[in-house]
């Protein structure tokens, strides 16, 4: 059975590189890109089961990426991550409750739970 494939998007490169290491350690297939535009390009090339995107990134934001994925790849699960905890400044209309948000810092178990993935794929 093919490994569950996750694409991570965040301009915090060392954070997502480490997350890729940890997800691979658990038998998952993970890749990291540092911009929304790079993510959309990658999604056109390969299929992924889930996307984890930072809400606030230079250029295309996490919500814009979410919007595009929703239209172009409706079957992909999307999880937004953010360092903003107030819940007031980042409540765009697109976040209608059907997509999960995880506050940084988060545990790897919380990430996997939000993605609905058991460990070891």
């Amino acid at each position: 059975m093919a490994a569950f494939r996750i694409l991570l998007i965040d301009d915090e490169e060392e954070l997502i590189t480490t997350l890729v290491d940890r997800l691979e350690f658990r038998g998952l297939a993970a890749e990291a890109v540092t911009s929304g535009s790079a993510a959309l390009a990658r999604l056109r090339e390969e299929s992924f089961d889930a996307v984890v995107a930072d809400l606030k990134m230079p250029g295309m934001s996490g919500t814009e990426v979410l919007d595009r994925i929703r239209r172009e790849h409706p079957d992909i699960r999307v999880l937004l991550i953010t360092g903003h905890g107030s819940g007031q400044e980042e409540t765009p209309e697109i976040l209608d409750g059907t997509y999960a948000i995880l506050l940084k810092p988060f545990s790897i178990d919380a990430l996997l739970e939000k993605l609905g993935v058991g460990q070891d794929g």
Partner: protein
Amino acid sequence: MDEANTERRRDTGLAFFGAVTAGISHDLNNVISTIDQVTGLLADLVAGAEAGRPVPLERLQTVQERLRRQTTRGAGIIKRLNTFAHSTDELRREISLDVLLADLLAIGQRYVDLRKARLEAPAAPAPLRIVGDPFRLQQAIFAALQRLLGSAESGDTITVALAGGKDGAAVTLTGPLGAAGSDQDAGRAQLEGLLAGLGGRLERSVAADRETLVLRIPGEPPPAGGGAEA
């Protein structure tokens, strides 16, 4: 200065303080989040080793390097936050303008990055000291930077240069010209007010869709009654 003006300046100062500390808290949160994941990776490797999976030395070196980079980064952020917080301590003191500008631009880099713009700020040729209100000075420079960033698009460049002279100093910022409108006018009036409070003035020019803001800052104490009030 009348009560309404004093209150308005206090409000913009608080808003500036809030914007800067919110941005710094976001940067610190990213550092902590990264360190959290790197220590988690270390725990994974330890657990793997206990289960009989050998840990290559290179992986441990990678973990060590990531932790070192993030702690160095975090220490730099905290040092800038501390310096910024203490800039409210005194209304007048001697300021190392080149150091203040470098720290402020490091804080502002996050906003530049979010616009996917570029910041070019050549190092000052020599240390430059003036006497003034460090908090209001930072507020004025930051307001000028934010004004130019408000019109910036991906790939745009904003340049910041510092020069000294016998009458004081000048911070020159050049960036994309914004569309004319009430917001632009209000921002310019606020900037002029901040500089007036420092005993300085704003010089503005436009050429080829780029706006240049020269913040003239006096080297001598402003006249009595013209100083900044908290």
